[in-house]
Structure formats: C-alpha cells, structure tokens
C-alpha cells in the first residue's frame, strides 16, 4: 500500500514500561496522607500548603508516568505544559482585586 | 470633523486633554508616515513594462529603527499616562477633605445622597435627590458609587469622569468642578431598555450659593 509513513505504535512498542503498580500504590498512599493532613489541628495555612503540595505531587505522578510525559520528547512536554502559565495569569491577576 | 475636545470643567480635565493631544500628535505623525508612504510607494513603484522589482529580503537596520522608535514612544506615553491615572483614579487619590456623596444607580435613575450642611454622610441631615447632583465649585467631591441591579456607568463628559457602578461594590470617584453651571450626567454602560434615557444633571453652585441651597434643602426635608 502506498502511503505516507504513519509511525504508529510500531516505533514505540519497545518502550520501557515503568512499574505502574508502584505508581498506583504511591497515589493511593498519598491520598491517605492527604486525608490525614486535611484534618490536622495545625494552622490552616500550613495545612492548605501541604495539601496543595500533595495534590501537585499526585498530579505529577499521573502526568509523568501514566501519561508518559517522562518518556516523551521535549517538544511534546512543551506542548503539554504550554497552557499552564495562562491558567496562572488569570487567577493571580483577578485575585489582586481582593487580596491587594 | 472635529478633533478638539469640548470644554472641560474639572481640575484634571486639563491633564487628560493634554494627554489626548499628545497622543493625537504622535498618532497623527504615525498616520501620515504610513498613509503618505503607502500612496507614494503605490505610485512610484507601480508596475511598468520591463521593470523588475528589487530582490531583497529586508534590512535588519531599518527594522531595528522602526522597532525602537515606537517602543520608546509607547514607554514614554505609558509613564506620562500613569501619573495622571494615579492622580485621577488611584486607590487613595481622593483628597481627604473632599465632600462625600453617595450615588445609587438603578434602572433607570440616579439616587444622589447629599451630605447635607454638616458635609458628612450617614448623618441625619443627609438628603437624597433623584437625578440631580448639587455640588460646590472649586471644592473636591468624592462620590461613593453603588448600583442596585445591574452595572451602570457614571459619566459626566465635562468633568472627564467616568466610572462604572457595580452592584455589590462601592467605588469612590472624585472630581472638582472649576466652573459653576449645569452639566449633564449620563449612563454610559448598557443597562437595559431604558439605558438611553438614564440621564441626570449636575448643578455646580458657587460656594456661598451652595451653602444656602444645602441649608434650605435640609430644612425643607426635616419638617
């Protein structure tokens, strides 16, 4: 068949797979930790910061391993991360209305 | 065609008008350069038999020039504008001794609470008038703007004042009239079917006249 080369899975099936169960266990464990932290009698500010840190950690695990960003070329990582600054800009700017 | 702004009647009208004219000159020059250039090139380089266009992909030097000049111009413009902006609308720009008013905008009228003879809001001698704002000349006033239903906008063209009135917010806006007389207040934000007729008047009184007017109003209302 004459055809434009479509590199499909063919080029990828010798990709090393990380141990996904370990990632899964980490995600489950982090969720447990979150539940614990959320109800700690500490200063709200510390708790909130901790929780955000944990959520980012979990999100990173999903993005890096399940979505394979760790194993992608740099240009794909850029594609994936490109919108993030935009998400921050609007929230920060509007917050100045109330926090400033 | 009219490029001259109508007469201003507030202390900062002059600053705003000045900026406007500065921009008018800058953009006027840019306008002439571009339009004259386009017409000139169009005539000079029109296709003629046997001619061939010059093959060039550009000139870095020329491009740097026409990047740098606008860049410097806009930065200067920004700095000039910033000062006036802070003076007129900065968070704490209202003069401390300004006479306070409260204006409630609602579909489709303005309720103006005057401070009364004591010059203070939230005192028993306050009184509210519909669609009229009376104020003294040569004295700063600060209007605390709110809206009841939707967004309106408090616009006094002669004072170069415009500020949206937003439900759920109280926004101070100050100005100082320099000439006594009657001015129009318009609603400048689409607020529903009566938006076009949500006008009111601003009466600027001479200082002594204003005092007696206020006293008379307060007296009439307390009876």
């Amino acid at each position, binding site marked *: 068949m004459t055809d434009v080369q479509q*590199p499909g899975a063919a080029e990828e099936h010798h990709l090393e797979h990380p141990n996904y169960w370990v990632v899964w266990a980490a995600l489950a464990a982090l*969720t447990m930790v979150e539940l614990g932290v*959320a109800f700690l009698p500490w200063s709200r500010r510390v708790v909130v910061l901790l929780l955000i840190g944990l959520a980012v950690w979990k999100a990173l695990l999903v993005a890096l391993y*399940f979505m394979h960003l760790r194993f992608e*070329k740099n240009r*794909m990582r850029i*594609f994936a991360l490109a*919108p993030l600054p935009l998400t921050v800009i609007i929230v920060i700017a509007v*917050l100045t209305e109330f926090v400033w | 065609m009219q490029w001259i702004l109508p007469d201003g009647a507030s202390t900062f009208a002059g600053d705003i008008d000045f900026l406007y004219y500065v921009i008018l000159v800058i953009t006027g020059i840019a306008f002439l350069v571009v339009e004259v250039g386009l017409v000139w090139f169009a005539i000079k380089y029109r296709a003629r038999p046997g001619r061939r266009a010059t093959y060039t992909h550009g000139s870095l030097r020329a491009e740097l020039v026409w990047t740098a000049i606008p860049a410097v111009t806009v930065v200067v413009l920004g700095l000039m504008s910033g000062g006036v902006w802070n003076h007129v609308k900065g968070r704490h720009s209202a003069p401390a001794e300004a006479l306070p008013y409260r204006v409630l905008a609602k579909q489709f009228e303005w309720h103006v609470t005057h401070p009364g003879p004591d010059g203070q809001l939230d005192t028993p001698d306050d009184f509210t008038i519909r669609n009229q704002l009376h104020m003294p000349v040569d004295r700063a006033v600060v209007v605390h703007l709110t809206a009841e239903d939707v967004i309106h906008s408090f616009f006094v063209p002669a004072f170069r004042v415009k500020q949206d009135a937003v439900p759920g917010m109280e926004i101070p806006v100050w100005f100082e009239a320099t000439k006594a007389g009657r001015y129009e207040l318009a609603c400048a934000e689409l607020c529903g079917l009566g938006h076009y007729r949500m006008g009111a008047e601003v009466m600027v009184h001479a200082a002594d006249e204003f005092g007696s007017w206020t006293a008379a109003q307060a007296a009439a209302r307390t009876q």
Partner: protein
Amino acid sequence: MTHAPVMRPPAQRELGAGVYNEKLGIWVFLGSEVMFFTALIGAYIILRFATPGAFAEPGKLLNVPVTAVNTFLLICSSVTMVKAFAAANMGNLKQMKLFLLATTVIGAAFVGVQVYEYTHLIHAGFLPSGIREGSELAELALAGELGLGRPDPAIAGIYGSTFYTMTGFHGFHVTCGVVCLAYATTKAFRGKYTQTDHRGIEVIGLYWHFVDLVWIILFTIVYLI
C-alpha cells in the same frame, strides 16, 4: 483501488512533533480542556477569596470518606488503563481486553458514586443555588455546625454553584470517557487493536488520565481545603 491520483511520497514525510497525528491531536485538545477547567476552577478560587465565609469547613457538609473511596476508584481505573496500553504494547492482547473492560467498569462505578453523592446532597438541601431554606442542612448552618463564616445559609449559594459546576463538569467528562472506553472495549473484543497499531487505546488513555488528574486537584481544593 482506482485510477485516482495516489500519493507517492518521494521522501519520508517529516512529522514535526515526532508522534502520530492522533496522539498529537489529543494532546492539543487537552490543552483546550486545561483552559476550560481553568475557567471553572479559576472562578472557584477567585470567588472563594472574594466571599470568605461562604464555604463550609472540610468534611462538615461534603462526605469526604465516600469521595475518598471514589478518588481511589479513579486512581485504580487509571492504572488499569495504563496497564491495558502496556499489555497492548507487549502484544498481550488478552490482558489488554481485560484491563480495558476493568477500566470501563471502574469508570462507570465512579460516575455511580457521584450520582449517589449528588442525590444525597440534594436531598439534604444542598443545591446549586445554595442551601434550601428549612432543610436539614439549613438548620445545621444556622446552628453554626457547618463552619460557614456567616450564619445566613443563603450566602452558601456561591458554594453550591461552584461545587456542582466543577464536579458536575468533571463527572460529565468521566461519562464521556466511559462511553469512549466502552466503544474501545468492544473494538478490542472484535480484535481491532494489534500490537503494532493500538493508537485508539493510547489516545483514550491520555484523555482518561487527564480526567483523573483534574479530579486529583478537585478533590483537594473542593473537599479538603
């Protein structure tokens, strides 16, 4: 085949992104999803700062244990999804089918739990417009049990609005994902995916993990903070 013009590449076409079209396409599309959730989550963050006291303390109104279980379900479905992809990659098509099926089922379970959560909340009086007057929750709110900064339950309107919109749209995304997964699963059982070509699985997988990722953030900021 016909006499129509046929593409005959004189040279290997370069793929700018180095990945096949569908994969690039889904990543691009996820960019727009990020911005969509930015609108919803951004609005929530802003409103939360702007109206202190309108949001109940964690665990007081929303059922955290049930949601934690649900979070766990979604994490499980993510791992089964990626295992399905890995299995396909290794050529273990049987395992692939089973993992796909598992993902679909767990995904559907997530939606089920969310429906259960919604019915309970609505029944108790927590609505998108706020806390229903005279409801069980309204009484708790007035008694100060919910940790609402202001006793007036009407103010919790913004709480209900953001809660239902964010989690609702997330749920909608999960539902779409389940539909796609069900489709992929049937395709898999009909033998349409091979070791060399299982693009569909990778593409749906990326979407599915993204939805999981959004939930991880929502769970924290809506239920725990």
